[in-house]
């Protein structure tokens, strides 16, 4: 008898919601999770006590036996940067995973995002259509409690579970002043605009990143709890370092280490690797599996951003309401995608108090001028950034580094080069930035440093799906081409990145994989 029918590696939002669905379908599911527990109340307290309020990793527990990249106060160099460009990605290793500290933006892709190669001659096509994804998107949105407006450009056959969250005053003014030049739309987010799923409506704490103190936004901690409620089992403190295949290529066991290095293994009939876009390929590379195509870890994509900050000519007081409420979607698609990256324009509503304080202190502004400048800037400053599509490039990849962690396991290494397609997209967005600033009566414009891009932590492409086993890692259901009882779940299976935060799509695909592994009996659907 195997130890479990389905062994899921990783208790993040994708692994957990696949585990939940399989458990509801009647499967015996065991989730192996490298990290330890994460408690909401403790994270809220740690955030309030944190000396670095803008460092969203800081309030989270760090498990030395299951490290994740840390950058402040000192880099831990867990993720080795091989360049030429840096990719300072963030993720969390702990029960529930990275979406504990996400922004909960839960957009669908556009239909064209899945057909880039045939429409525009760049990137690749997906092995499935948007229409096939639609019901899985809907199921994911209902599980996660997604609120959104209808005018997103992504067709849907059923309404959103919830109306958009009430528009902050600042966003209303931006929308009014940019019309009709730009249509400013409410962001689609897994954030409650009313009580939903036993969780309350948003009350505007404005700490969505790093932690929503009232669970008004959905996250992986809730997902794994729902999986356990459905009957799945969880083994935390289990760092899986090798999958073992039998002579026929079927996976028979997952080997893991406990925090003190004790070796353990569990057997199963089906295995799901859901350890995220860096750790999942790392595990397959360590296991020497699923890589006939040589594509494991390759085609790494993340959305990249440049930004503009300026002072509007009216007080907006960012920081009232949720952090990321509004966007401009008109640059997400068009013939220009043949030439340069598509992008979304995203308006921040993150309180400026901490960042302006830092800046004024840096500049040595003391005395009465401090309060005057703080109030003026906190009231008037606003920010817009682009979220740029990145194309798959096999040279951008995760490999095993020569370094090892506390358990003696290799740490990941990233090779990353930002190409001209992205740089041209950023160039095009500069014109939007300038127009937006002009319309808002912008003064003291501050563009992000030329040629520098920030990461968005949407780790796509490293286990890309496709129909051709010679050029992709898994099939349209996330099943590894090389191992018929191995499934891959998470953002990594996405062959292109589009311009939207990746998690909703990854959850939809994970639910679809779960249905493929064990269909939900009609009575429970």
């Amino acid at each position: 008898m195997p130890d479990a029918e389905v062994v899921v590696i990783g208790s993040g939002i994708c692994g957990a919601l696949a585990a939940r669905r399989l458990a509801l379908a009647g499967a015996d599911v065991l989730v192996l999770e490298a990290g330890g527990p994460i408690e909401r109340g403790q994270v809220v307290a740690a955030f309030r006590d944190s000396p670095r309020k803008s460092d969203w990793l800081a309030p989270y527990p760090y498990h030395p036996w299951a490290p994740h990249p840390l950058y402040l106060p000192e880099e831990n160099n867990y993720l080795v940067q091989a360049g030429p460009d840096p990719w300072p990605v963030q993720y969390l290793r702990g029960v529930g995973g990275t979406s504990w500290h996400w922004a909960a933006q839960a957009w669908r892709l556009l239909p064209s995002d899945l057909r880039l190669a045939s429409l525009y001659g760049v990137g690749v096509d997906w092995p499935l259509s948007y229409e096939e994804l639609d019901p899985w998107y809907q199921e994911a949105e209902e599980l996660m409690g997604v609120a959104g407006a209808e005018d997103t450009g992504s067709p849907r056959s059923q309404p959103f579970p919830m109306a958009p969250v009430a528009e902050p005053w600042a966003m209303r003014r931006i929308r009014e002043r940019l019309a009709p030049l730009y249509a400013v739309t409410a962001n689609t987010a897994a954030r409650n605009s009313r009580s939903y799923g036993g969780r309350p409506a948003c009350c505007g704490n404005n700490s969505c990143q790093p932690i929503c103190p009232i669970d008004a936004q959905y996250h992986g901690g809730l997902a794994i709890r729902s999986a356990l409620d459905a009957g799945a089992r969880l083994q935390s403190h289990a760092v899986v370092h090798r999958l073992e295949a039998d002579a026929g290529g079927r996976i028979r066991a997952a080997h893991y280490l406990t925090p003190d290095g004790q070796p353990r293994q569990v057997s199963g009939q089906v295995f799901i690797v859901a350890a995220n876009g860096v750790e999942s390929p790392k595990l397959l590379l360590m296991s020497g599996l699923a890589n006939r195509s040589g594509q494991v870890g390759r085609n790494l994509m993340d959305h990249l951003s440049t930004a503009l900050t300026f002072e509007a000519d009216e007080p907006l007081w960012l920081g009232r309401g949720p952090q990321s409420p509004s966007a401009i979607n008109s640059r997400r698609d068009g013939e220009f995608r043949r030439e340069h990256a598509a992008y979304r324009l995203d308006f921040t509503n993150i309180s400026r108090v901490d960042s302006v304080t830092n800046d004024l202190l840096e500049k040595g502004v003391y005395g009465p001028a401090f309060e005057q400048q703080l109030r003026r800037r906190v009231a008037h400053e606003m920010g817009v950034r682009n979220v740029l599509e990145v194309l798959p490039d096999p040279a951008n990849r995760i490999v095993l580094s020569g370094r090892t962690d506390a358990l003696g396991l290799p740490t990941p290494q990233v090779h990353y080069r930002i190409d001209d397609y992205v740089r041209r997209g950023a160039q095009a967005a500069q014109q939007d930035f300038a127009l937006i600033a002009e319309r808002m009566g912008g003064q003291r414009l501050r563009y992000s440093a030329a040629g520098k891009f920030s990461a968005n932590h949407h780790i796509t492409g490293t286990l890309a799906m496709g129909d051709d086993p010679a050029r992709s890692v898994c099939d349209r259901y996330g099943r590894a081409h090389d191992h018929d009882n191995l499934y891959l779940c998470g953002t990594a299976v996405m062959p292109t990145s589009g311009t939207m935060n990746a998690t909703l799509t990854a959850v939809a695909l994970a639910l679809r994989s779960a249905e493929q592994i064990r269909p939900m009996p009609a009575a429970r659907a």
Partner: protein
Amino acid sequence: MPSPTRRLLLKAVLAGYATAWLPTAWAAPGDAGQAAFLDLSALLVGRSYVDPAQGKPLFEAFKAQAGDFPNRCLALLAQIQARQLDPATLQRVLDAEASPLAALPRQVARAWLQGVVGSGTKARCLAYETALNAQMVGDVLRPPSYAYGAYGSWASAERSDA
């Protein structure tokens, strides 16, 4: 009421200094370093008064991190007084002459404005919602992680004409 020692100290270091800058915060009798810290703090954050009760844990934390902290406060305050240095230009002046005290104003200001004492791996946050930067905008904003209000209360016009 200020103690006689305290009066002497003020007389010594602040004689001739513009009264607008005279802070009214008083430290425990006999603790010249702490008194200097409070006076310096008030100058840097642009207030005529800083709360000694709020200042005490900050001062203690600084002292625990660097034993010479009280003396550095005394030295900087004395310089400010002697040279009639204005807070608006203080940092530039100290930086230009590569003063050994150049880091101090920022450290002290940060402690009050963000509640943070120390830097890097030694940084500790001792105040958040009571830190002065939160208080300075408290008529309009709540510190992140505290509820702004009932659902949708953020949709109306701002509450300040700043």
